[in-house]
């Protein structure tokens, strides 16, 4: 394991005490620290390589100009021990990539619409001050831990220019050892960014929004994964509409509107893509359910004669659902799901219902214990 830059307990500029290592990206290490002047927890970011410091500083200045509830707040910037440090608001939550790896294969249109709506607000406020992100991808989006992901914040502005350079180097040298950061970024990169065109700008973020929405709803990135995606992106050919977008039953209407957003954002000509402000208008008119969600396990489906079944909720009650409210292939028994719950009699009614990945064993034991209060 590579030596980390800071150790727990270290105090920087007499104000920030390092609490623990949190994560590392391709360019930086992230720690949880305590701001001793206010006794509040903050995120401390340090570039890994001194060569990246100029960009790091510029990225900090760019994001410091943006003050918005959907953008991680820049709090401080300083040098210590010959390294630059950035202090950001510490977000209680996890990044969207982790959630896609561990919790959701894909999102239903309601949840996807909610996330895209908040994302586009963050992007619009940046674009208004002429700051663009350059590296929008699920790992740069922080979301709250609830199943409804009720709040989200975008982080890591402009760091991406570094990533763009790295990918160009990789493509040139045909290297197969591209970093995880680069591999994660490619599927969301606009063709003009991949080509490293000088004029790449705000519309590149819009492309990323389209690619992200496609990924969220279908479970797949539109142009494939990793370096292989580079070629497909450069061909600029919109992939065929995935089955998930040919919404059935209760999802018609909303899925069509979301697909229109995807296709508009993924236009080859950057000038033909909608602006962030235009997308805000579109998203403000979308009708979706932002109700908070619960989780449970499908316990019976088609035991009767209709297309319906029950979910045994983690809270212990049984909730009815109709297959028209289920986003994804046919519901299966034992499948873990999350759902919004509406009043009904004798059982409440779930809509929409979204399948989840199976829980890890330790989590499953917890859930089983919660679900059955008479258990061990």
């Amino acid at each position: 394991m590579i030596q980390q830059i800071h150790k727990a307990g270290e105090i920087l500029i007499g104000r920030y005490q390092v609490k623990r290592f949190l994560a590392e990206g391709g360019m930086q290490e992230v720690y949880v620290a305590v701001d001793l002047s206010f006794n509040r927890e903050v995120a401390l970011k340090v570039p890994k390589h001194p060569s990246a410091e100029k960009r790091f500083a510029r990225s900090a200045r760019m994001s410091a100009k943006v003050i918005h509830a959907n953008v991680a707040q820049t709090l401080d910037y300083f040098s210590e021990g010959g390294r630059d440090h950035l202090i950001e608001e510490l977000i209680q939550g996890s990044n969207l990539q982790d959630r896609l790896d561990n919790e959701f294969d894909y999102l239903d249109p309601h949840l996807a619409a909610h996330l895209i709506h908040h994302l586009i607000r963050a992007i619009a406020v940046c674009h208004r001050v002429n700051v663009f992100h350059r590296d929008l991808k699920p790992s740069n989006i922080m979301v709250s831990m609830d199943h409804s992901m009720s709040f989200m914040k975008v982080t890591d502005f402009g760091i991406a220019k570094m990533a763009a350079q790295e990918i160009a180097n990789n493509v040139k040298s045909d290297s197969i050892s591209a970093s995880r950061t680069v591999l994660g970024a490619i599927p969301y990169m606009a063709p003009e960014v991949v080509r490293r065109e000088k004029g790449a700008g705000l519309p590149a973020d819009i492309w990323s929004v389209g690619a992200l929405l496609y990924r969220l709803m279908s479970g797949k990135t539109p142009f494939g994964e990793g370096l292989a995606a580079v070629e497909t992106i450069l061909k600029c050919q919109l992939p065929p509409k995935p089955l998930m977008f040919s919404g059935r039953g209760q999802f018609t209407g909303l899925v069509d509107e979301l697909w229109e957003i995807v296709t508009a954002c993924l236009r080859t000509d950057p000038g033909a893509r909608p602006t962030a402000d235009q997308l805000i208008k579109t998203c403000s008119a979308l009708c979706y359910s932002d109700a908070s969600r619960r989780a449970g396990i499908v316990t019976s489906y088609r035991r009767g004669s209709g297309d319906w079944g029950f979910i045994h909720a983690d809270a212990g009650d049984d909730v009815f659902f109709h297959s028209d409210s289920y986003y994804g292939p046919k519901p299966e028994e034992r499948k873990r799901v999350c759902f919004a719950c509406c009043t009904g009699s004798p059982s409440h009614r779930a809509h929409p219902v979204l399948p989840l990945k199976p829980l890890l064993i330790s989590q499953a034991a917890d859930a089983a214990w919660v679900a059955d209060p008479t258990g061990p």
Partner: protein
Amino acid sequence: MANKETVSPPPFRLPDRFEFLNKTLAGGQAFVYLCRDKFLDRQVALKAPKSPITEGAVRKELAILSGLKSKHVTQVYDVLEDKKSGHFAIVEEFVPGPTLEEYVERTNIQKEDFLRILYQLACALSDIHAAGKVHRDVTPRNVKFDAESVLKILDFGLSSVARPEGVTPQARGTPGFVGPEFYGSLPAHFSAAADVYGFGATAWFMALNGVLPPSLLEVPPQSLTAAPSFSTAGMSLPIEIVEVLNATLLPNPSRRPHAPCVRDTLKRHLLFGRHRATIHYEGKTYVLSDQGKAARLPAGNDTITVKYSGLAFVVAAVTGDVYINNNPAKADDILPDACVITLGAPPLKQARKFVPVNMSHPEVVL
């Protein structure tokens, strides 16, 4: 009564990091110096007490702000303290404005704007009260808009941590915006309800283009005349809004609504006419979204008519055996957000018709 603006520099030496931008605002307890943070190349507000007497108020504000997380409250970045000279200041997010007071002066506020601003203010107060704090000086001058028109509530100088027995040694605040409870024999009792009163007075200030109804300016307020009803505010406000706004100004603090109740009522009305019901009937999907329009779902003699009121989908008429989520349907029932309408009595079993209906609406993101 706009804040006085001068160019007088701070009376102490600024750390090299900050550059004074020749703009100073005088608030109640503090001077606010507009500065540039050279490290991050952004404008910040440097707030220093007007005199040693008001230092306590600024320190109190700091304690409150650093424990509050809300998009409607300014972010504190730093504290500057020089033990030797005794100078003390806080560095916080610069909110360019205008204040709500300035905005009212230059705008003829219409209903939609009125509801949106009040909704944001109710969100701000809900966040503050949820954190166990009280602002104590809710006025149009202490409410400001940032570059994205997000409302921020400023000047927590008078604020305090809410305690059920909370008493203030002396009644302060802005006349017209404080409730009658502050005019009794001192010490005055205050609570979150005092902020709700300030909210109500602020609503009148907006509705009347910058003035207050005379009854709020009586000493004590409303001692001779009760506050007028918001039905006379000239914006043809929905009755539900009128009622909740009227209640915010009730002289008895315990009868005023809580901020979240005001917030939720305003939110419902911001979505007026913007809901959508998706009805899945006989293999086809229908969308009902025009206010005043109705959908009639027949199955033999069993029929139900659902009408969109602008706020909800309401049962307009029922004939025969019709159930909503297994409960017998009757006129004036409001459909839950997701339901199935069953046409036909239970003995018909599979011959019954099942119609799933789901409601959705745009998300209010301001």
